[in-house]
């Protein structure tokens, strides 16, 4: 795990130093003296290897350094203030996606090839194919501009979570629905389902306790990377709804050549991703009786 993080940090460090242009380039070039003062202040005139060693050492102590762009703010500070916002939005979106996607998938599987199935799958196809920024603009137009039910943008009140969360939930909800339907259909034809029916269990019990539990495994697998991705924020959604999250920093820091922010948010994302994947692996044991940490001796 640590090896993965080290490789990511190193590759990012090399790549960002290869791109031309620096954090203080501007259309109004600086006098030499001023440029020297700035480079001295941010230690940009140290040799590359020294900056690399310093950076790695600080990384171990989770000191991500000062932002070059935002005066007086550290990268830790930017993550600490942006991540909670993106995380709240992300978790809400995933919860919405699960609430919409799984029932739709179950319904579609149970009524296979009947109209609820067709309808759910049509909605899912639309959800998967429409990119989130189109969804966001569409939602904003309908619910903020036309109906005026929700504020168009900004962050802070619960009503301001609804539209961006819906926009973010579109794709995963559709994906969940298709995934649930497919695995439900597979599980429903298995022998143990027939056994459960034969034992005289009610249909609801069979579906919820046996079929659904198994059918959820692929969803659970997808949940790890999805959470890591969605909790660290979306550049497009945050831009459209003017949300002070972390997602925008992934893109803007590169435009700004804000070296410390580029590295900081990349490493942060990697840690989150690796950790969540690890947790998902652990979660399998609880969900799937077929997976065990140690092989029982036969």
């Amino acid at each position, binding site marked *: 795990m640590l090896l993965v993080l080290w490789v990511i940090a190193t590759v990012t460090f090399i790549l960002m130093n290869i791109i031309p242009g620096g954090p203080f380039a*501007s*259309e109004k070039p600086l*006098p030499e*003296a*001023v440029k020297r*003062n700035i480079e001295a202040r941010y230690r940009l005139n140290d040799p590359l290897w020294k900056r690399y060693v310093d950076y790695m050492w600080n990384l171990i102590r989770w000191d991500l350094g000062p932002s070059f*762009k935002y005066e*007086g703010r550290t990268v830790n500070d930017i993550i600490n203030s942006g991540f909670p916002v993106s995380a709240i939005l992300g978790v809400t979106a995933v919860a919405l996606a699960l609430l919409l996607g799984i029932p739709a998938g179950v319904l579609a599987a149970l009524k296979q090839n009947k109209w609820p199935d067709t309808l759910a799958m049509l909605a899912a196809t639309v959800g998967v194919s429409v990119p989130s920024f189109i969804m966001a603009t569409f939602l904003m137009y309908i619910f903020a501009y036309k109906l005026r039910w929700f504020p168009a943008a900004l962050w802070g009140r619960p009503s301001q979570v609804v539209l961006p969360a819906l926009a973010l939930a579109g794709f995963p909800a559709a994906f969940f629905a298709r995934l649930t339907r497919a695995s439900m259909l597979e599980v429903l034809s298995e022998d143990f389902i027939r056994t459960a029916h034969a034992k005289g269990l009610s249909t609801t019990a069979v579906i919820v306790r046996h079929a659904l539990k198994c059918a959820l495994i692929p969803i659970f697998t997808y949940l790890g990377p999805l959470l890591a991705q969605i909790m660290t924020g979306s550049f497009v959604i945050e831009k459209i709804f003017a949300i002070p999250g972390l997602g925008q920093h992934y893109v803007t820091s590169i435009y700004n050549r804000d070296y410390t922010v580029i590295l900081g948010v990349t490493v942060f994302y990697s840690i989150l991703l690796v950790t969540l994947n690890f947790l998902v692996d652990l979660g399998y044991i609880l969900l799937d009786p077929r997976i065990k940490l140690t092989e029982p001796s036969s």
Partner: protein
Amino acid sequence: MQKRLACLVLALVLIVGGIAGAERAAEQIIRFNIGAEPETLDPAKSTGVPEARIELNVFEGLTRLDENDMPQPAIAESWEISEDGLRYVFHLRKSQWSNGDPVTAHDFEYAWKRALAPETASQYAYQLFYIKNGEAYNAGEITDPSLVGVRALDDYTLEVELEAPTAYFLSLAAFPTLMPVNRKVVEADPEGWFLKPETYVGNGPFKVTKWVHNSYLELEKNPLYWDADSVILDKLVATTIESEDTELVMFETGQLDITNTVSRPEIPRLEREGLLKVIPNLGTYYYIFNCEVEPLNDPRVRKALSMAIDREAITEYVTRAGEIPAFAFVPPGIPDAEPGKDFREVGGDLIEENVEKAKALLAEAGYPDGKGFPTLNILYNTMDMHKAIAEVIQEFWKKNLNIDVRLMNQEWGVYLNSRDEGDFEIARAGWIGDYVDPMTFMDMHVKDGGNNDSNWSDPEHDRLIQLAKSSNDPAVRMQAMHEAEAILMDQLPVMPIYYYVEAFLEKDYVKDVIYSSLGFIDFKYAWVAKH
């Protein structure tokens, strides 16, 4: 005197207000969008327009710009300028910081020296290079700050010595870099004093009460401001929204009163509805010719290229926000020597468009009907508008001169690097003035100037710029700059295309906001009418 004037103004406002029938709304709040998260709010270090829009409402310098961008007494009640224009003595009024400390001449001395100090590493330190030894101190050539030409003679008298007579120094005194700062507060937390409302102490009409990063700032009226009686607004909300479409929806649903910009396709509709506001912006959009590259090293070629485009078509059909076709380099909006005259009006148009002449010039340079002309690249930073303009120009050159150019876009940082290293043939560029004087556009083309990316130089042009810089006589200065501009536009190392304007939306109940052609917004006298 001041009081009587204030009464008179008040009476006038009441009369005018009465006639117009505009009544003040109960809630005096304006929500405006600054378009980006401020990179810093330390006036010594900030460089951008979003930052200045906050700082100018939180701080006040020796002078403040009025609605015509002319400097008016502010913290300095009056001043004397020596015969040779090198020494200024400012007499400060008794005023207070928002924490109750007195604002003194020492605060100005401290603030200016701090902005110049090498360890501050301010990107805009050059705004103070006009001050004696300012540049040397910034470069570390002298280390004794007492040699820098700014001195508090007593608590309320500030003496400033300049390197050379600088006619626009009083305008510069209203610029964020020259704002005073409260020493006690800054020294307590030099890196972060401006991040927290409790320690962000200013001396202007408003004070910051809340800063939610990447979202919005809240400002409230500063009751300790010396002219607080003139301030009508109770509160300002400054959002940092980047998306044009988002701010438009917010404007139309009442979440915003003033936008930062406006989405081009919506302009005709918004203009019909009377919501569009277009103000001149002190800036020029132009192309740079790399004068070291064949065949652009031939002035006839550069001239032919400049003559063969239709600038009016570009502003009318491509940019569409009311931009002004540029037939010289210095934009309108800068006063000339004679009061009431505009530098651009006096200078007139310096280049012409003429396809026949362009063809003749190109033939003379050895490329009749474009034969043998190499394929050049137009470099621009990735943006739809730049691309659209480049495509139109590509078409004009093909149609009128029968020459081919390729378009090449680069991401902003890469593009700046290419320009800086001279790694281009033709490059798109824009220049926004730093102060209201032609010099902010004219001194960038001198030999080896940091902003001279065309690699062009002309000794006579440089001599005239030097003359304008060292003279204290407005007539001599302006004349020298007119002549220098004529040389520049005859040689055309840069091809002006249009003068910028700023187009944005303002609700009709928002009154008396001062928009400067430098991009600043002053809310000191602003108010909200009943609606």
